[in-house]
């Protein structure tokens, strides 16, 4: 029916397995049911005291236990669970023997406050300096913390557990990380280095310092009550994003390899694109050119034109600047066609899963293609009159969807887009 190669002569890259976890729950079935029902996973934080914080809610994943708890440990556990789900669906390789490399989007790792406090207590006197902390760190008592807080620790654990091949790559492109992990997998397959790749993105970093860091940059919503109404993409009264946890895993394969083994094809990664914005550390270039260029690059990579995109899964963080910039740039790319393209932001319900968002939203986009139903953007009661997207507001919408563009933009000028389709073009 279709050629194993795309218009540019490269192997077509398909998805044969997906696993997902968000504050809405574990697994595709649960997440999808809640997503199309317009449920929010945002709640008041109970994991740690919120006294003194401006923002007291988040999309935490509280139903996964990790002992001893650390954000990195939670990221790892979620990544493991979503990978299991994806591999079960794909039915690829053997147990602990995945036939390809791992590309992992993961939050930057560092020693966390519980461990730092443990060290502080171990000094055993009220007045001390950092040198005192350093002096008691050795001797093997805290060896496990070295292993835990290596940047490569999560990827190494996944590589060993699932038997991925070669050197696993841990990457960060901030809020675009999830999309970048997919892009790296697509590129490896297109180059012919491998027939399959495991692309995983995970973020479990709702902790006090992470909340404070984003708060100090005025990036977080402070509409704490009720928490479910805090994330308001494209609304006039949006005031920031809501931090959230989650993970997504995708098994990518060449179309040829997938069909040869009779795998069910869940969708196609038709195109990926990426373009750096060198304007500012946290703000987009006012002319939007890098984002416009990123979307155009992605269309070109997919060999598609704007009239072939019939849904946009927006980055839609609900920060005042992002949503406005996203509308301006998207409308510059799509022109009048944009009126007919339904747009939604999953972040209205699951919050912003930061390093995981690109993969989480790619999976939601693929589920949208599968179910021919677009999840809503909830809390859309007061549309921003300057954002003229056809927002799928508050209620899921049945629609004919053949190609979805999913966008991710991050601090550090990171822009990445994906185009996902049901069938190879």
């Amino acid at each position: 029916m279709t050629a194993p190669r795309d218009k540019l002569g490269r192997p077509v890259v398909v998805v044969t397995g997906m696993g997902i976890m968000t504050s809405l729950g574990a697994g595709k079935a649960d997440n999808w049911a809640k997503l199309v029902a317009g449920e929010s996973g945002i709640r008041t934080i109970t994991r740690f005291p919120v006294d003194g914080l401006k923002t007291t809610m988040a999309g935490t994943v509280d139903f996964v236990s990790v002992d001893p708890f650390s954000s990195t440990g939670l990221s790892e556990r979620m990544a493991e669970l979503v990978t299991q789900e994806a591999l079960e669906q794909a039915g690829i390789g053997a147990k602990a023997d995945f036939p390809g490399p791992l590309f992992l989007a993961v939050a930057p790792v560092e020693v966390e406050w519980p461990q730092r406090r443990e060290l502080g207590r171990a000094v055993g006197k009220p007045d001390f300096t950092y040198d005192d902390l350093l002096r008691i760190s050795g001797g093997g008592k805290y060896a496990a913390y070295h292993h835990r807080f290596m940047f490569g620790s999560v990827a190494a654990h996944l590589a060993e557990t699932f038997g991925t091949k070669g050197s696993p790559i841990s990457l960060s492109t901030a809020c675009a990380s999830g999309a970048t992990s997919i892009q790296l997998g697509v590129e490896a397959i297109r180059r012919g280095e491998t027939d399959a790749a495991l692309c995983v993105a995970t973020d479990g970093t709702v902790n006090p310092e992470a909340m404070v860091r984003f708060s100090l940059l005025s990036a977080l919503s402070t509409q704490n009550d009720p928490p479910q109404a805090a994330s308001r993409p494209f609304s006039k009264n949006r005031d920031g994003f809501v931090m959230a946890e989650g993970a997504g895993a995708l098994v990518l394969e060449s179309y040829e390899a997938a069909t040869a083994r009779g795998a069910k094809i869940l969708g196609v990664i038709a195109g990926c694109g990426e373009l750096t914005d060198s304007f500012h550390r946290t703000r987009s270039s006012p002319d939007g050119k890098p984002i416009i260029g990123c979307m155009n690059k992605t269309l070109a990579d997919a060999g598609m034109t704007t009239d072939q995109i019939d849904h946009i899964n927006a980055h839609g963080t609900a920060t005042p600047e992002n949503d406005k910039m996203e509308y301006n740039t998207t409308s510059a790319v799509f022109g009048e066609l944009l009126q007919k393209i339904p747009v939604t932001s999953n972040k209205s319900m699951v919050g912003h899963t930061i390093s995981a968002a690109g993969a989480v939203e790619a999976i939601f986009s693929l589920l949208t293609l599968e179910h021919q139903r677009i999840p809503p953007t909830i809390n859309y009661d007061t549309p921003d009159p300057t954002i003229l997207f056809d927002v799928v507001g508050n209620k899921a919408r049945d629609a004919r969807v053949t190609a979805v563009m999913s966008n991710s933009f991050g601090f550090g000028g990171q822009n990445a887009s994906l185009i996902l389709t049901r069938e190879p073009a």
Partner: protein
Amino acid sequence: MTDTASKPGQTEVWITGIGLATSLGEGLEANWAALQEKRINVDEKGFAPYIVHPLMPVSFDAQIPKKGDQRQMEAWQRIGTYAAGLALDSAGIKGNKDILSKIDMVVAAGGGERDLNVDTGVLTAEAKGANAPGFLNERLMSDLRPTLFLAQLSNLLAGNIAIVHGLGGTSRTFMGEEVAGADAARIALARIASGESDIALVGGSHNGERKDLMVLYEFGDFNLKDKFAPVWARKDHAGFALGSAGAFLVLESKAHAQARGAKPFARLSSVVADLARRKQPGDMAVTLEKLWAKLPKREGKGAIITGATGAEPATSEERGFLKGHADFPVRSTGTMFGHTMETQFPLGIALAALSISRGALFPPNDSTGTEIEMQGAPTQIVVVGAGHWRGEGMALVEAVS
């Protein structure tokens, strides 16, 4: 195993720019001169009992003209942004908007540079009884500099390089300690060799003068203490001395380089990497042998530049591997530059390319006999990078024929 060797029909990839800012100095001349003189810059006192290779002071203004930009970065980002600028200068593309607007970037980075005063302040207050539920939150809200976060984020080294030097292609940041540097080179090479990219900036930077990092490595007893010794002479006194360095390379397809008249230092022929399980003694050496076998055939005058850390058991395992290839003179960047973590592998490639272009390997600096003199010009240098805890990488740098 993952590998990126140039395959038939794939384009040749040249190293056309090198930027170095290290404990030995700034730029290729200063680093080369120090290597020739076997001059090592270690500080045994400032962080005693721990030893570091401190950055030779540079004038950051020369590559990061806006003070505002410098203020937005912590040291590791300033070092990297500086070295990246030197690499662009070296390749002759600094300020070349046509090229910089499309150059691809793959950066190997750590991150998380902390404000030690804030951390110590919180912990001592708690030791004195501060225990209100919101104490930590309130202190962090009031004490953390709002922009510190941006100086901590791993991908903001790439972000700062893009801002300061005007880069507008793709930007990817790899993490994961030593092997992240090998993977950055591996992916950049693969993208150029396959035609996905024409030119890329690859490298990393590290600030070794950081007590917060020393705490992390002290957890595993990895810091070298009390007295400096060359990497190979640390068997009974194991550990690494953190080093400060930025090392960046401009990689470019032969056709792209020739079209603009750029001269190569050397050719990057292959980069391979793997993750040994390191459960049993010998596991790592087996992986190194496998990587060695995956490199293209070596027929020329060869040498090895390794980033061996001095940590055990990794260094002893690697020494065993090297003994099996004793016809290749060995040089250790860890002895000369300290351990610069994510930066060590790009630094190794840089020194390999420099040695090839200068027609001589730099002299040995070792009392154990692991490093021997080399006569004549090397034409093939294997760069080895085995992490102190995990991750193994290898590259082949060759003279352009």
